[in-house]
């Protein structure tokens, strides 16, 4: 480090007469760098501002400019996000409940269908038996009619 400083000092000593020029060049370089840095920052800021305006418009609010304390746009975005979250949660709860009820209904219906089918099969077998006992003269009596009543699920007569 000390060597470098020594070399710089020596070089500076040799630059008699053209020191002003070198100083000017150095200052110009620094200014150019500052300008470039500033331009980049402005470009970034403009892009961010354009993005913020677009985001706010999409959310249905207006971008009030950076650094505002009362920011309707930010509030709107917060509201929308909460809305999305809560709606999703509510819909999920409803869907889960519906799926659960559907499963219960299905199971209940299957059991009922089985009970009904068993009863119909039993009544049909009894009917077949009663019908087979009818004499060739085709006279049918109370037993046969009772079986028909049962097969059809009719109310008990005489009520």
């Amino acid at each position, binding site marked *: 480090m000390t060597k470098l400083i020594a070399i710089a000092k020596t070089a500076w000593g040799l630059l008699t007469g053209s020191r002003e020029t070198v100083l000017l060049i150095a200052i110009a370089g620094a200014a150019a760098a500052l300008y470039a840095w500033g331009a980049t920052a402005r470009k970034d800021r403009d892009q961010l501002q354009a993005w913020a305006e677009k985001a706010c418009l999409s959310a249905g609010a207006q971008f009030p400019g950076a650094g505002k304390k009362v920011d309707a746009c930010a509030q709107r975005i917060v509201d929308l996000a909460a809305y999305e979250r809560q709606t999703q949660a509510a819909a999920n709860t409803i869907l889960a409940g519906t799926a659960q009820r559907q499963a219960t209904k299905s199971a209940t219906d299957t059991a*009922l269908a089985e009970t*009904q089918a068993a009863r119909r099969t039993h*009544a049909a077998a009894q009917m077949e038996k009663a019908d087979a006992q009818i004499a060739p003269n085709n006279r049918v009596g109370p037993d046969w009619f009772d079986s*028909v009543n049962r097969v*059809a699920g*009719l109310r008990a007569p005489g*009520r």
Partner: protein
Amino acid sequence: MQGCAHQAVDRPAPSVVAVEVKDTPPVDLLTCPVAPAGFPKDAQAEIPPAVRAVIIDIAKALASTRDQLVRLVRWHSPGACEDAG
């Protein structure tokens, strides 16, 4: 669209809307089937086999359709038509 959105003003926070859609049929479709009274206990008749077969088929069809209707009603109103079941 964005041109319109420029006029956006402060809006209240949107309220959550998640509605369960109930697909309930009209009440008269959910009426429990009523079984008619059966043949009298002392009934007597002379019925040829072909006619007897038709009577039995009608009886079976009635029971089958009734059972199906009871299932449908109970699907929408659990526990309904208890005496018809």
